[in-house]
């Protein structure tokens, strides 16, 4: 048994887990405020990463400018999606809404693969140092940056929903749409803003992950990995999303360790989250922090 390897994997797991947490938070944000299950969350990462890559590499913009333009683009993109595609679906059965986002994800993924190609493309180097030494562990600078980024986003979410006027309006809408509307909250604005914020933050996550691993269609798989995380944490809990993401990240890397040390089955880490997902659905379908729906006749 190789202890250094285990620690290294756990550190990786924690970092990847916080990123899962960020994407899961974006997913929960949309679910909580608009009751839409967004199967295209992974494609938001992809869109953001490719747009930023195109600005940085093809238009040779400096990083900060390219990043800001990407965020602005994603804001408009999120609002447009909500207004054009999701608004007509309000009141439709859940299957239709799910299929709409799935259809959207197919369109986006194939469109981006057509424009940018199937191969992984690298971002230009942003940091001078490749990796830094923390307590005897070699940690890649990009990983460290993604950890800092994830923590910043989480703190940002906390302050936004706790103190800002719009954040409070969004929470009120999630709690009860009719009451919020009668208190003067514009539900349309809240819905559009939820999609916009989710798209923006997902795009940031996409850029960060793209810097570490390069940009390719594989990024959209984050959108699928989100499901174990949110089911574990509870579909409508932002805290749950973060905790769930972290657990899934750690679990994947633990499975990788068990696999390489004892079992040698190969690729165990890819499938373990889904087994966990099924087990959780069987024993505790509303997750760790989710609210249980109680139906009255």
């Amino acid at each position, binding site marked *: 048994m190789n202890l250094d390897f285990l620690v290294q994997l756990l550190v990786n797991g924690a970092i990847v887990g916080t990123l899962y947490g960020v994407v899961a938070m974006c997913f929960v944000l949309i679910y909580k405020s608009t009751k839409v299950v967004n199967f295209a969350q992974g494609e938001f990462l992809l869109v953001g990463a490719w747009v930023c890559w195109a600005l940085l590499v093809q238009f040779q913009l400096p990083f900060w400018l390219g990043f800001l333009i990407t965020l602005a683009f994603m804001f408009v993109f999120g609002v447009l999606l909500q207004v054009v595609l999701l608004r007509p679906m309000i009141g*439709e059965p859940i299957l239709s809404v799910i299929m709409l986002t799935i259809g959207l994800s197919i369109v986006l993924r194939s469109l981006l693969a057509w424009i940018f190609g199937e191969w992984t493309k690298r971002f230009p180097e942003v940091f001078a140092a490749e990796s830094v030494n923390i307590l005897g562990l070699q940690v890649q600078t990009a990983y460290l940056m993604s950890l800092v980024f994830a923590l910043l986003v989480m703190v940002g979410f906390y302050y936004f929903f706790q103190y800002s006027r719009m954040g409070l309006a969004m929470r009120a809408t999630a709690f009860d749409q009719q009451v919020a509307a009668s208190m003067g909250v514009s539900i349309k604005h809240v819905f559009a803003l939820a999609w916009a914020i989710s798209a923006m933050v997902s795009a940031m996550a996409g850029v960060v992950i793209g810097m570490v691993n390069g940009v390719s269609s594989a990024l959209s798989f984050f959108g699928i990995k989100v499901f174990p995380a949110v089911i574990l944490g509870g579909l409508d809990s932002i805290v749950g999303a973060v905790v769930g993401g972290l657990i899934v990240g750690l679990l994947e890397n633990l499975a990788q360790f068990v696999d390489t040390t004892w079992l040698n089955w190969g*690729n165990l880490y890819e499938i373990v989250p889904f087994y966990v997902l099924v087990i959780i*659905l*069987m024993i505790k379908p509303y997750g760790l922090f989710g609210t249980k729906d109680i139906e009255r006749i």
Partner: protein
Amino acid sequence: MALGADSPPCGEFRTTYRQDTRIFPSAMSANFAILGVILAVICPLVLPPYYLNLMIQIGYFGVAALGLNLLVGFSGQISLGHAAFFGFGAFTSAYLSTTTPIPVILCIPLAGVITTAVGMIVGIPAGRIKGLYLAIATLAAQFILEDFFSRAEWFTGGSSGSFAEPFTLFGMTLNTDQGYFYVVLAFLLVMYLLASNLVRSRDGRAFVAVRDHYLSAEIMGINLTKYRILAFGISAFYAGVGGALYAHYLGFVSTEGFDILQSIQFLGMIIIGGLGSIMGTLMGVTFLVLLPEVMELLASGVSGLLPGITEGISYLKEMAIGLAIVGFLIFEPEGLAHRWKLIKAYWKLYPFSY
């Protein structure tokens, strides 16, 4: 003036419960169905292999999609793992036909039965959860089964795939498109009749009751868990038979092609065709099988104007599927079956649409 006894009333009037549950509401529709089957039987004699290949695809996908419509359209449960069952049926039938002496004609239903068992196991969570949670559980099942296909080399041949014996009947080997067309047609007819009979039976009405209001259904004495798991089993049976037909058509099954995208296409077929419509299912399957071919034709048509378009054709085909699903959901959520009903109603009452 009252209508005479000999002049038939305009429109369709059902006065007894028996009339309401008939398969064919009128003699006309029965005649058209028979005409359709006769036309299909003539097809292999006159059509070139390209069209036969497409029709065979419509056949085996149609069988699988019928099962999905019974599950999603009739019992109201979402499954994102239908392609995995389709694949399981394909591998089972290939495995049975090569390692056991069972004739292929029995392997196909047997593969369906074994897939039913798998489907019921996957459906067990349906007893406890529903809606979105069930969708995610079936998504997990899709990935777990796909993972199983790539691991279980004794069963699927792993990454190299496995071979399936050609279909033989009374010493004849039906491995040409012409011969196999009749096999698929026969299976499709039987499965279609089974499905349309199921939905007018007690169990079919129970499915609809569970879909429309599960609490009321339970109060009426319908065992929810039983019917939910039964729906999964039936849908898996259809998927298994469809997959087995696919396996024996190609003669070779690889682990590719049973991925989440195929599951989404199955859902797309039933949404485009119309949820809760048996005939609509086949319309939707036809639509989604022909869509890529039409895209290819269009792309080669405009390739003079847009030179880069032929390289992107595979992406364009995928995008067209996504766009078709989104477009139908927004503009025609009840699918082609609904449109067909409107057309029929228009002609039935022509020229006085009162």
